[in-house]
């Protein structure tokens, strides 16, 4: 566990003072390095040309706000969830719906496709994460084989399978993240450190595959060691709730999107924020972010219904995409980078390429 009780000579006040002192010292050390911002380092990099990104598919079928989506590893199927409890699996390429489940709760804010493609996980206001094996028997009710895996004490905000169908990582409004064994529903590890609702998480694509990052209403992005449950790095530069976190493809950094209308890039080895993606004309919060395959582009879905495309290296905005008629609530790039999908409160999902 990352937190301990008070020691013999410690009061809340003394601990807070010590924390402040350490923070100041850290800032001094960082300043000594006279570090440049990323866009300065990338000054000589060739600017990007014009981009033509258009909606290539519009998926209609949800009867209410789309809240979350995830891609299948087959690069064309997706799962999406909505406010009215519906979870739908689509072949996004043909726009056919292949499975549908109605959850017993509203506001299904989290959903994920299993790596094997044989199951989906979802949850929301029911405070749980459930796994549904996908059956192709038309007569079989998917809800019959539902498996309840995670149990939190507040809403489920995000979920993700780890490298197999057997483990799920969750984040919750109860301020914690947790790792679960799917087969038994057993809690394998819990992660305490956020001081408010945790809204998002992403697994690191590292060689040793042992860390993940989470973002919360406490404006912090925390990096965790999955083995020990410890918070190993923490970043606090956003000015409001962090709605989305996503690793840079190499795993050396991650991006975040916040209600403060900015996206930011955090370098894990330099241990600090190295870029801010913002514009005065963008006055609504970011709900979700993801990188293109090479990491050169960062896509941000915003609460003002638009998608902004950023040049990660130069810090400039490359394009603004219109189309959705309400908030963009979720956005993910496909596994092979050929497209990205956005889900919106306008009840639709769009595939862009």
């Amino acid at each position: 566990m990352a937190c301990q009780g008070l020691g013999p000579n410690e009061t809340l006040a003394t601990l807070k003072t010590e924390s402040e002192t350490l923070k100041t010292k850290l800032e001094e050390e960082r300043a000594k390095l006279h570090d440049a911002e990323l866009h300065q380092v990338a000054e000589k990099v060739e600017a990007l040309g014009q981009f033509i990104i258009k909606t290539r598919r519009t998926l209609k079928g949800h009867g209410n706000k789309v809240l979350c989506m995830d891609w299948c590893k087959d690069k064309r199927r997706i799962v999406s969830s909505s406010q009215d409890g519906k979870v739908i699996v689509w072949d996004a390429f043909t726009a056919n719906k292949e499975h549908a489940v109605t959850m017993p709760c509203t506001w299904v804010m989290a959903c994920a496709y299993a790596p094997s493609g044989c199951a989906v996980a979802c949850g929301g206001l029911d405070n749980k994460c459930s796994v549904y094996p996908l059956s192709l028997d038309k007569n079989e009710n998917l809800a019959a084989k539902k498996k309840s895996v995670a149990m939190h004490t507040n809403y489920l905000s995000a979920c993700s399978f780890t490298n197999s169908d057997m483990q799920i990582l969750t984040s919750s409004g109860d301020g914690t993240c947790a790792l679960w064994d799917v087969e038994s529903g057993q809690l394998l590890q819990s992660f305490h450190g956020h001081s408010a609702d945790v809204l998002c998480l992403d697994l690191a694509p590292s060689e040793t595959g042992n860390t993940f990052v989470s973002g919360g209403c406490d404006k912090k992005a925390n990096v965790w060691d999955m083995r020990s449950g410890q918070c190993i790095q923490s970043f606090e530069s956003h000015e409001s709730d962090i709605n989305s976190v996503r690793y840079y493809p190499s795993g050396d950094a991650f991006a975040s999107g916040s209600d403060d209308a900015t996206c930011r890039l955090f370098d894990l080895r330099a241990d600090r924020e190295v870029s801010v993606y913002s514009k005065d004309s963008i006055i609504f919060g970011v709900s979700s972010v993801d990188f293109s395959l090479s990491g050169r582009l960062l896509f941000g879905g915003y609460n003002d219904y638009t998608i902004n495309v950023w040049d990660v290296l130069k810090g400039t905005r490359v394009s603004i995409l219109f189309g959705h008629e309400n908030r963009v609530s979720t956005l993910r790039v496909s596994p092979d980078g050929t497209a990205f999908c956005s889900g919106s409160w306008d009840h639709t999902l769009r595939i862009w390429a």
Partner: protein
Amino acid sequence: VFTFILKFQHDHKVSLPMEQVIVAMQDPDLGIKMKNQRLLITVIPHAMTGNDIVEWLMKKYSIMEEEALHVGDLLVRHGYIYPLKEPRNLVLRPDESPYRFQTPYFWSSQQWPASELDYAIYLTKKNIRKQGQLIDYEKENYNLLHKRINHTWDFVVMQAKEQLRASKQRRKADRIVLECQEQAYWLINRPPPGAFDIREHGPERRNRLTSRVQLVRLHSFIIHQKKIHDRTFIKYSEQYFSHDPMMHGCPPSNPWITDDITHWALNTNTVSTPTKLRVERWSFRFMELLSDPLGRLKFMEYLEKEFSAENLCFWEACEDIRHGENSRIPQKVQEVYKQFLAPGASKWVNVDSKTMEKTLEGLRRPNRFVMDDAQMHIYFLMKKDSYPRYLKSDLYKNLLVKAIAPQETKRSVFPFMRRHRHSSPNPALVAQALEEDGKAKRLGSPRITSPATSP
């Protein structure tokens, strides 16, 4: 009324980004130039046109018209600017239509609840003025309220009458402005059925602060400081540039754009001849090779020739432990020990003595991470030794030579002829079929179990 508005703006603490825009728009020097706007026979002061708003936004934020119109429209929808003509229609028209700024008193960020009582008074005033001719949903709401707060209805009517009397004493222009302001406020706070409702938010986020002080290990961060001028991100994006479909296109074409799935067909896990880009990518980093099932297969072939395939097998078996079912861990750990680590094991892997000692210790209480150290040792062994040699090997070089490099096809000459969009077998179906046929072999590491795509 107008001096009151200005003073209020001065005192009001501007917090929201939207409000910052609104305040900037009203700056006496750099904001929009306000004028009198004619509304039928009345002259309304301190107003602007839709065009004024769009042009100001374009200039101030260096954005194109489409974006400026979008931002301006949001300002209207959120009640910070309201139209004088067609006041029920809260949209921004990029023409000479007149608009005014909403008084801060009515800003949606004020967050004092728009009470039933206030709404009742407003509807009653309207009812009296229009002599009973309220719009459908307003009529409905009026009747509902009349029932619900019937006990205070005398007060409601009295207030309504008093406010109407006071407004009659104002100049016509002022009266119109106040009516429009109030109407805009209620359109936001009691939107007509089916209309856009800005009050909609997701589930409540309780920003609680716990009393626990989190002393994260700050000291360790200082040790690992590193300058970012080592160009990591620049190098990475350059290396992957031609592999990024969004940046560089996608040979022969992006399926989502042309409806042609050849690109996917050429890159399944079971192709006999991989593409050039794919084989190239295996040389970027060891993890790329391992995470591509086909890459891993080819690497295994090479290792078999080198008589060191047991390393990769061991690594895969460890992955299976780490990511497999909790209940099978003890059994799997035992198997792995017997196969790879025990003296005289059939697939013995060369782990250094210190790591072996630690692993044997851990075997007494087998858990998901007991093989971690050994796995990492073997992983780095392969990375530092076998992998570089593989890339220099004839096997790999042949793959590169024989690899397919499809030409980038131009868009169809007849773009309006839509290709048939082929469906593909659902991965769940494929898995089910395998199981039913009894052909389900143990697929090894969970990583290999990625659904094949067949055209």
